[in-house]
């Protein structure tokens, strides 16, 4: 009997299982963003690690992150100070974060998994190189070569990677080179649409960093950060508030803004503009990194209790919530950083404010249908202002409109071949007219010819 109880049922995971598990739920794009996050964390630390608020004007223009993607190789390099040898030995390559580990304050990396997960997702032959300033001020360089196939095949218990000496380079920073790309990476990097969409994602998700001068290049092209802007005028002013909250005893600062970014659509019919309302909805940033963009789903709260589902009529609205915390674990981040953790307390209390703000906008879009001309005139008078310049204001202000009864409308719907529609649009003066606009103009034209003034 004692023989049996002395035995243990083996539960240690195999490397292969572990690698499959950590890579299966993350997309290629998010893996690449994870690597960018690490570079940005290093830059932010160099810049003095503090909360990124909208008002903060940290200069990141000395830092540059460069990515190259081809069907044969992926590289990312930065000049953000490099990873120290101690960090490499103790933390950077271990899977997960030790409780005892010192935190990087106000960082975006949370779980101590990003870099490993990313390189496993990308390829089989990896070299991580780092150059940092040693204690005596002179440059120190090392490299961690990872042959994934050999590492997986080695069943001995240690999961460690070897560290080797490396050539000295001109800059302090990290370079990651991935060869023998995985099939999905190879296919994606040969796809111009993937590369362009990655650029768009970077422009959007790091817009707050890019706005502070950080340079990111993808394949020789410098990314220009997306501008988040809200419209202001006598009639329109966005809401901008800030407050403190607690998550598991840790303090989190929150800034919230929202208002009109563009006039709502005249028509709510699904029309030919394929990206008509792509940029509207709610945005959430955690320590400066945008983790949810233009959300129109229940994750922001649309269609949940007391908050209507997103409708095209509401297009034109943008709301932004920025969470910052010295301890990243207090932020409402998911592991892929592509969404927010809806169970987070700080997020749930923010959602109530997000809902109330959204509902004011919804009411306005309902009201404007009865005073469309007046509303359009007032909307056109508003000018776009970068979010950092929006004035602090406890509530959103929208114009009050003189609502008039409108004559009962007739809605028209019919189909014609797209080529003929485009030809008519061109003849009417603009090849990009919406189908609806072509319809309205041809109605007006025919009406004028056949009916004329009554």
């Amino acid at each position, binding site marked *: 009997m004692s023989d049996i109880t002395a035995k243990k049922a083996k539960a240690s995971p195999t490397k292969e299982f572990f690698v499959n598990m950590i890579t299966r739920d993350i997309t290629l794009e998010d893996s690449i963003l994870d690597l960018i996050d690490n570079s940005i964390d290093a830059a932010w630390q160099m810049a003095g690690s503090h909360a990124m608020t909208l008002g903060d004007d940290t200069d990141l223009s000395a830092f540059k992150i460069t990515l190259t993607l081809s069907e044969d190789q992926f590289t990312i390099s930065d000049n953000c100070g490099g990873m120290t040898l101690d960090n490499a030995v103790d933390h950077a390559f271990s899977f997960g974060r030790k409780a005892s580990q010192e935190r990087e304050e106000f960082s975006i990396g949370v779980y101590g998994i990003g870099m490993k997960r990313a390189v496993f997702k990308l390829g089989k032959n990896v070299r991580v190189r780092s150059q940092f300033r040693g204690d005596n001020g002179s440059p120190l360089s090392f490299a961690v070569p990872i042959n994934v196939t050999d590492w997986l095949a080695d069943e001995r218990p240690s999961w460690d990677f070897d560290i080797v000496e490396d050539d000295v380079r001109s800059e302090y920073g990290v370079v990651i080179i991935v060869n023998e790309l995985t099939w999905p990476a190879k296919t*994606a990097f040969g*796809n111009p*649409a993937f590369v*362009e969409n990655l650029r768009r994602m970077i422009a959007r998700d790091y817009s707050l960093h890019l706005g502070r001068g950080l340079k990111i290049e993808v394949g020789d092209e410098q990314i220009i950060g997306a501008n988040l802007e809200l419209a202001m005028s006598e009639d329109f002013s966005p809401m901008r508030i800030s407050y403190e909250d607690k998550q598991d005893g840790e303090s989190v600062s929150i800034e919230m803004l929202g208002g009109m970014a563009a006039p709502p659509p005249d028509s709510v019919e699904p029309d030919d503009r394929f990206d008509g309302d792509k940029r509207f909805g709610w945005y959430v940033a955690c320590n400066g990194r945008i983790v949810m963009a233009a959300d129109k789903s229940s994750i922001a709260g649309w269609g949940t209790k007391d908050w209507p589902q997103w409708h095209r009529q509401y297009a034109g609205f943008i709301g932004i919530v920025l969470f910052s915390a010295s301890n990243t674990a207090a932020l409402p981040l998911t592991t892929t950083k592509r969404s927010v953790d809806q169970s987070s307390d700080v997020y749930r209390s923010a959602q109530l404010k997000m809902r109330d703000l959204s509902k004011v906008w919804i009411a306005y879009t309902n009201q404007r249908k009865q005073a469309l001309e007046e509303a359009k005139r007032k909307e056109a008078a508003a000018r776009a202002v970068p979010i950092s310049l929006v004035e602090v204001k406890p509530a959103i202000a929208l114009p009050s409109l003189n609502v008039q009864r409108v004559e009962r409308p007739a809605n028209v719907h019919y189909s014609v071949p797209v080529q003929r529609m485009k030809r008519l649009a061109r003849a009417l003066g*603009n090849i*990009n007219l919406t189908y609806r606009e072509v319809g309205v103009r041809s109605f007006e034209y025919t009406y004028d010819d056949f009916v004329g003034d009554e």
Partner: protein
Amino acid sequence: MASFDAVNYSLRPSKAIQRQLVFEGIRKLHERLRLSDSVYVGLGSVWFTDFVLAHEILNINDMISMEVDDIGFARAKFNAPYATVQVRKGSSTDTLPELLADRYINKRPWVVWLDYDGGFDEGLMDDVKLIVENVPSNSTFLITFNAHEMNYGNAKERPERIRQLFGDTVPDNLSKKKCKTPRLRHTLAGFAVDFMKSVAATGRRKEAFVDTVQIVYQDGAPMVTVGGMLAAPETVNKIRDAAGNAGWRCRPERVIRAPHLTIREALALQAMLPSEDSLNRDNVQEAGFDLKVEQIEIYEEYYREYPKFAEVRT
């Protein structure tokens, strides 16, 4: 107006040069990959010039031409140059799905050339998607379209129109300058290639689209021909090597704008070639006539492909 009513194909020297370059390029690739038993699918019109080259240069027997117009269909059947040319009545959009489902040909490599006179539009976009997603492995796919500015709206509207046509591959900040003559034609050619690549990469197929052809030529309006192969994984590198080689002629940097020469002029120039030194204007003047420098350069570069009028046979 149907294209055969608009113009006599044999009088377009730049188009003729372009066609020769393309078929020679395909021949090299077919030899390198040892492809045989191919099928040619095209828009033969009533001239079938490309069909003649497909048969002569590529040794292709099974050839299918699509013709939408009633009278054009009757004339095409009458003019079909070989016994193995089949003319199908219908638009490419209606006919291609039938051909792709035809078990007699859908396991063999195709050479598909959708040679249009009009601009890139939604119809061509749908055809490109259909072909790139479904054509058999190791097929060659080419499109030709009109790159004249006004096919794409006026200057202000053009970047947005181009985004509508080519989708995600077009950067959000596409400049107006890139959408104007002379850059527009290269802009369109680049996006058309990117579009083909991205359709192949996002589809479920294992073949990648490897681009091999990018030619701008001009007889009247500027025309763009782009294309490549749906390459099985083991053939990708062979195709890239061949098309990246210095002797590869299907990606010329300059627009092919061939001079319209009389037979006598063409023969006089030809008699001076090949020559170690480039032909210059003095040489031409000494021969008794005159041409612009650009015309002389283009002729010298492509004199072997310049149409010989005796060859016109349809």
